[in-house]
């Protein structure tokens, strides 16, 4: 393309990044100082930063418990998702009777957002006796249509000749799936892991409905409850906020290529 000055573009993008990052900074600053909750004007640089609010969080609420609950629910969700979606995705690459019906069913289920199912979902989970349990928290998210199609696309891309060669070598279908298909579907798997992690880790509405006891609360729920007890009166709320966000941000920065790919490939099928 032609020559044009670059600095206005940089300026505009830096301004945009500034708007995206300042809220984080503001909360981080409050979490280490807490000072401007009571003082005006707020100072831009934290005066006398200290980690006391983080210590407060540790003692004021069962952070470790919430964290543990979140990890367990996410682990169950991710495992179930990868296994179930890979199985369904593989089945959809085969020809079989009733495939069109199954495809139609999947595509129409995609049009039903989870939020519009909450009342029956609550009643159903109650009937299964799974309210207030890890399994009940994870069960509605056990399989996702988007990820089934991500797996299907990835299995479809495996060269036919490779599968035929494996068959001629006498490998059973299970072995072909296990030793040929799965290793070639690594990126689909990464997409699936990331998407199901984000969905279960950030999920708020379902845990809010499906849990009763304080022991079963996950991190987002604990954070919202903490807000309703404390209002905005303490820096500890913001310390809690940072403690909840930090793992997500870290994970995102470490695997950002997979994140962007996963989140947008999910959408493209949406």
């Amino acid at each position, binding site marked *: 393309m032609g020559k044009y000055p670059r600095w206005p573009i940089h300026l505009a993008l830096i301004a945009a990044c500034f708007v995206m990052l300042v809220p984080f900074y*503001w909360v981080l600053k409050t979490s280490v100082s807490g000072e401007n909750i009571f003082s005006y004007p707020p100072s831009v640089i934290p005066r006398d930063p200290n980690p006391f609010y983080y210590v407060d969080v540790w003692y004021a609420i069962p952070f470790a418990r919430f964290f543990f609950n979140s990890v367990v629910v996410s682990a169950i969700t991710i495992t179930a998702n990868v296994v179930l979606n890979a199985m369904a995705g593989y089945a959809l690459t085969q020809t079989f009777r009733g495939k069109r019906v199954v495809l139609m069913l999947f595509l129409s289920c995609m049009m039903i957002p989870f939020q*519009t199912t909450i009342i029956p979902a*609550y009643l159903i989970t109650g009937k299964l006796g799974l309210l207030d349990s890890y399994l009940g928290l994870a069960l509605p998210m056990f399989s996702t249509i988007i990820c089934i199609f991500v797996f299907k696309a990835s299995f479809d891309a495996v060269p036919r000749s490779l599968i035929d060669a494996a068959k001629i070598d006498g490998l059973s279908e299970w072995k072909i799936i296990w030793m040929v298909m799965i290793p070639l579907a690594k990126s689909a798997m990464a997409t699936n892991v990331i998407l199901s992690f984000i969905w279960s880790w950030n999920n708020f509405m379902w845990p809010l409905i499906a849990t009763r006891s304080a022991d079963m609360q996950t991190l987002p729920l604990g954070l919202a409850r903490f807000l309703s007890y404390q209002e905005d009166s303490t820096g500890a709320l913001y310390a809690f906020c940072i403690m909840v966000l930090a793992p997500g941000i870290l994970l995102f920065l470490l695997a950002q290529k997979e994140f962007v790919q996963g989140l947008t490939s999910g959408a493209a099928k949406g």
Partner: protein
Amino acid sequence: MANSEAAIRRPHFLARKSTRRAVLIWSFLVPSLLIFFLYRILPLGWNVLLSFQAWSPMKPAVFIGLENYQEMFFDDEVFWQALWNTLGIIASAPIGIAIALALALLVNSDIRGRDIYRTLIFLSYPLMTVAVAIIWRWMFDERVGLINYVARIAGLVDKPIPFLNSFTWALPSVIAANIWQMLGFYMIIILTGLQSIPENLYEAAAIDGANAFRRFARITLPLLRPSIFLCFVIGMLNSVTSFDLVYVMTAGGPGRATEILITYIYKLGFTQTRFDYAAAVTVFFFVLLLGVTWTANRLSGGNAGAVEAD
């Protein structure tokens, strides 16, 4: 038919196993199908059924016809308020998309550090919405929130605005927080669309003497149409079902100023235990979402030469 033909052409050691294969395939599908039946299809049917009943836990269900719907449309002001707010959020999606389009065009130019810009702008999207809501509560705070502070320094206001406690400002504030979180996502989708536009189209247009604006209006925008509608559909669905953002930022208040259908459904169901009526509102909500999605898909489709979003 086609199936048996394929079976004949296949080597014999596979053809013999065709029933076993069917069993294998179906057993691969059944777990997922079961989940979708339990948590998508059954709830949809149950909602419709419940919406025609008077029912609460521990009581027998009574068929009451359209009474729930009658109450909803004619006697329930909160429902209408929630509906208008929901439509307001849907109508605000283009604002976010327009900003994202501008950002995508900027990031798409060949400048240094574009990956860093992209990463930073995308960062807010995968984060926990509850935490995002708390961050924005803090930004909009009346006494010491950064936004009020900046507005006062700049002389835009002489008295701090209680954004989240104001009937005028609460909904726009929630919408702003929502756009902030969705922006990076829109940008990436549009960027993918931009990158799939063939470069030689621009070169040909430049040779024909089209200026930058005409190139944008005649090439970029039409070819981005599918991406833009994709953004709209996903963004719309994401925003109107963004229960956590509204619940944590304002809980629907002040009054019902930020009540949206999904928060209203939750309150009806789980604080007032009116499952039957909540189901009727849910059915309406579902039909509304289907309608908007369908319309957007119709508008996006049917143009020749469209570039796939993916």
